[in-house]
């Protein structure tokens, strides 16, 4: 039996659940797949509706973790097996090697001197990274990762024998005994290669909304300048394609909750950087629930932004690396073909567990959202449960923490 709580996933919902339970006096273990905590939120430039930086909220959360010995976390870690029952789970965790010392070492100069490169997944392929890397300046834990596969021959020679690097570190497995589980595995952007009518990711200067976040971010590939990836020039005409995959039986059978608001926010990024930009948003419904309508109205009042109710049927490449969109205006009944410097696909969120076979005894629906598990002391939180924005993920993580606490309390 155990009264510790396992939190699977160290994104915003997961760390919220973990910290809230720990501050109530429970031992919590976070298991996070990537090398740092913060999840998707860490990749965002600003939050709607206030346009404040997500690193501010993460900083508070990370401080709370630093101060609280009851929160323990494993990064680059995956659950390989879970057995037992409510109140008494045995969990096997595989710890993948980080290959750097377990304390904070500034490898920035060494890292920048390396030559081997690979696609930077954190920037969704908009930049390259080295074999020794830290994806963001506020990374927590603030430790680098050594990815030996990306090292060039000369890199390998450089890092060999460097103190605090352990090139030969192997994966390890640990076993934990847990009383309750919070599953906060989050989401991934819907795979654009499946959107064949929208170019399947092969059209130049047709990017996803998450790529837009990286472009706009100070820690992103352009230091925050929004430019066309093909020529690094600021776009003068931009189209947003809403519901790219969402609300579509062939793709995602639900609305992804955040894309309308994300687009509105990104309209404001663009308008701030380039007063001459012309933006068109193609949408089915503009979903700005609750007080978020204030943001919608603010963007409507922007002279640079226009809205067209209609689905984008097709995207293609035009001369000058521009993007051609074929649009059906639903109200006027017209079919339009238009060219843009940059097109942004508001790709939806897909639960991270979709298409996976997680070693967790959980009922899932056909889209990969968790649909139950409470009776077994397993509680889904955040976007593993349904598409949500950050505020609602925090709310959901807090609620899951309560259920987990009730499960282990008094044991």
């Amino acid at each position, binding site marked *: 039996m155990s009264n510790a709580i396992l939190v699977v996933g160290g994104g915003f919902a997961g760390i919220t659940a973990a910290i809230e339970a720990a501050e109530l006096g429970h031992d919590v273990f976070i298991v996070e797949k990537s090398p740092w905590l913060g999840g998707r939120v860490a990749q965002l430039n600003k939050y709607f509706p206030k346009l404040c930086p*997500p690193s501010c909220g993460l900083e508070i959360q990370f401080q709370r973790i630093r101060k609280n010995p009851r929160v323990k976390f494993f990064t680059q870690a995956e659950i390989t097996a879970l057995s037992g029952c409510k109140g008494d789970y045995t969990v096997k965790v595989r710890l993948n090697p980080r290959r750097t010392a377990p304390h904070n070492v500034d490898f920035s100069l060494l890292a920048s001197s390396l030559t081997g490169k690979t696609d930077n997944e954190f920037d969704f392929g908009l930049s390259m990274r080295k074999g020794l890397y830290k994806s963001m300046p506020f990374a927590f834990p603030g430790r680098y990762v050594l990815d030996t596969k990306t090292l060039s021959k000369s890199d390998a020679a450089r890092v060999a024998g460097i103190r605090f690097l352990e090139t030969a570190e192997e994966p390890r497995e640990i076993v934990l005994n847990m009383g309750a589980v919070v599953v906060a595995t989050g989401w991934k952007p819907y795979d654009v290669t499946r959107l064949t009518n929208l170019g399947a990711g092969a059209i130049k200067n047709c990017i996803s909304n998450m790529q837009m976040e990286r472009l706009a971010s100070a820690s992103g590939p352009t230091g925050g300048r929004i430019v066309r990836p093909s020529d690094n020039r600021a776009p003068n005409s931009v189209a947003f394609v809403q519901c790219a995959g969402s609300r579509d039986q062939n793709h995602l059978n639900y609305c992804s909750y955040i894309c309308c608001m994300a687009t509105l926010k990104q309209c404001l990024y663009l308008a701030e950087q380039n007063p001459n930009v012309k933006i068109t948003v193609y949408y089915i419904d503009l*979903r700005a629930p609750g007080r978020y309508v204030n943001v919608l109205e603010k963007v409507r009042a922007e002279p640079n932004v226009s809205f067209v109710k209609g689905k984008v049927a097709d995207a293609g490449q035009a001369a000058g690396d521009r993007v051609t969109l074929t649009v059906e205006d639903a109200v006027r009944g017209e079919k339009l073909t238009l060219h843009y410097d940059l097109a942004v696909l508001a790709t939806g969120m897909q639960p991270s567990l979709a298409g996976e076979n997680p070693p967790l005894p959980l009922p899932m629906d056909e889209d990969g959202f968790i649909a139950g598990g409470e009776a077994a002391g397993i509680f889904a939180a955040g976007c593993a449960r349904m598409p949500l924005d950050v505020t609602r993920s925090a709310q959901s993580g807090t609620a899951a923490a*309560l259920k987990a606490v009730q499960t282990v309390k008094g044991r």
Partner: protein
Amino acid sequence: MAGKIGVYFDMQNIGGGLDIEALASQTREKWGELVQVVKVCPVLACTVDEIKADIASRQLDGVLLCGASPRAEADVYRLPVQVEYVNLREQCVLSYKNPDGSPPDFAAGPPEALSIMARDYVNMGVVKLQKSENPDSAAVSGVERILVIGGGWTGLTAAAEAAATGCEVVLLEKADTLGGAARNIPMASPLAPFWTDKQPTNLSEKISAVTGNSKITVYLNARMEKLQGQPGEFKAGIITSDGTVNVDVGAVVLATGWTPLDEKYLAPMGLGRGPNVLDAAQFGKMLVAGNITASRIAFVLDITMAEEAAREAAGAMADKADAESGEGADKFVKEDLENIRHLAYSNAVNSVAALRLADTVCDKTNDAAQVFILYKDMTVPGILERFYKRMQDRPGIMMTKADVTEIRESGDNMLVVCKNTLLGMDFDLEVDLVVLPTGMVPITAKDVVVQFDYRQGPDFPDLQLFDGFADSNYICFPYETRRTGVYAAGCVRQPMTMDGCEEDAKGAVLKAVQCIASASRGIAVHPRSGDASYPVFNFVRCTQCKRCTEECPFGALDDDEKGTPKPNPARCRRCGTCFGACPERVVSFADYNIDQIGSMIREVVVPKDFKKEGPRILILACENDAYPALDMAGMRHRAWNPFVRIIPVRCLGSVNAIWVSDAMSKGFDGVMLLGCKYGDDYQCHFVKGSEICARRKENIAETLNRLGVQPERVEQLEVAIDEYDRVPDLIDGFVGRIIAMGPNPFKGM
């Protein structure tokens, strides 16, 4: 007061830019007995056991770690004594450039300006520790009883969940029955996976689970008389039909829900003109009672007509002076915050409500009814799209986007004029009933619910920022209001559907239980959770000026008739705004106080020759946003002028004017206050700190002027945490202005 300090230098994390051995021996020589141990460690993180051994054998009561930023690896150093950090990596070596702006050539030896800066920082660290004490505990008893205000869907959920967590519950409901708005909901929108079908609310089961629970006491026909005291030991006065009941409670969940928007706002759409126009709440009520006979029903979700009428009405009204906020005012008058915006804010709830009500009508009439849903945007975000899809396929329901430009009587029926529809034409829809959306007005927009018996008045501050919703301004922290220990949930916080209310209730209960636990351990809640320090008042010198009690962003301080402050540590968030406010400097924290920061300022060696040895500029930096931004600038090798000295503060609200005077009389040439963004979209973790500081700066400027010092020597600059590439330019810009101004006239006096 730390009297035996160990100073440890981290070779690995400072790099080759400094002569650490020289720094270590300087420290030994300067501080003598106070500093018992000075060690240069090859790798500090691997020395934790050695430090612990030193603490034991040399009876150290303070440890100063000189190396990386405290943000880098503070979790490594969990030591049994006070720990302070000297940030020699990010904010010293990594961010160093020569006074002329050129990059340093470390191979040629440690640059002089860098060595001087490092020495200053180490000495400031020693003094900081010397003037710091481990706080004693301000723990309160921690009554494990939660007061839930409101017995509707959210309140019932909260009561049951709190009881299931082991707490006693007092549930207060102003009506004579439990259930609230849920009583008028015939069928709920989907409450659980797979989110495709409406569901029975099973409200009576939910009610009996509460009334049958021995841990829960329910008061009907009841309202708050007052809430007194502090988390863990609140005293709630509840007015019931049998008189006033006094209960001790540890924390409060506010779940008072909403009331429908005044009919007058929907009159332009026909509400109130006759029985053929209802709002969704009225329609639900009639449906529950089985009184619906209409067979052609139009749900009109486009609210443009109502909004335009309200806009015209507002334009016609004479400019009204802004109503005073209740904060700090002597006589409290509740401002009615109900307005037309509540209709728009209820968009998602109304879209979902139209679907479930339409579905219910079709069910009840065996599909004889014909229902139309006319919308501008069908706001069914997220997973409930599945329910929407299901309804799109349902026979009997027809939906289209439409601009509804007129709703008028046509014989016994109603005519709804629809333009710009998806059917390729405009049309007039004849129906026998029109259902309009319901504007959800949070009870807190109209009533003072909690009745805080606080110095700053009975209501929540900032309500006008959220049109009356008892919401948080923090996207990451949805439960944080400005009244510690009171957590809002459900539609009083934001309009939400019933599944959302249930989840929200659970979250608020967790925060309430956690707050009680923290109060009983004497530690702070969000955002400085775990902080055991609290403000202590030296009343002998207090002049009862009331500044601290007025400025506390959380209303933590009460006062007596004379104006002497009465602290409530469990309400306090430990920002230090009170001691920033105090002209007599009577307020202090054990580990953060006026004398401590003042001593750090005085510890900086200020050279007499401005021209030859450069100016000295003090930066008081907010540790929440500005300090991390400086760290990240350093990590990115962005450098700034080496003549600045940075002191982190808990919040700019805690900056006391005396520090600026200290700096000026010490000979500093300028003081920069580096804090977060303020205004409606403030980013201050303590709500008002940077704003209050900006206000106080005016007084500081006046004082400086009187003393013959240019007020431009003190500037407050706003920086967000992600503006790390901009912050070095901000600093250099200020330094440039100071250099142009020349030396502080007090220098060397």
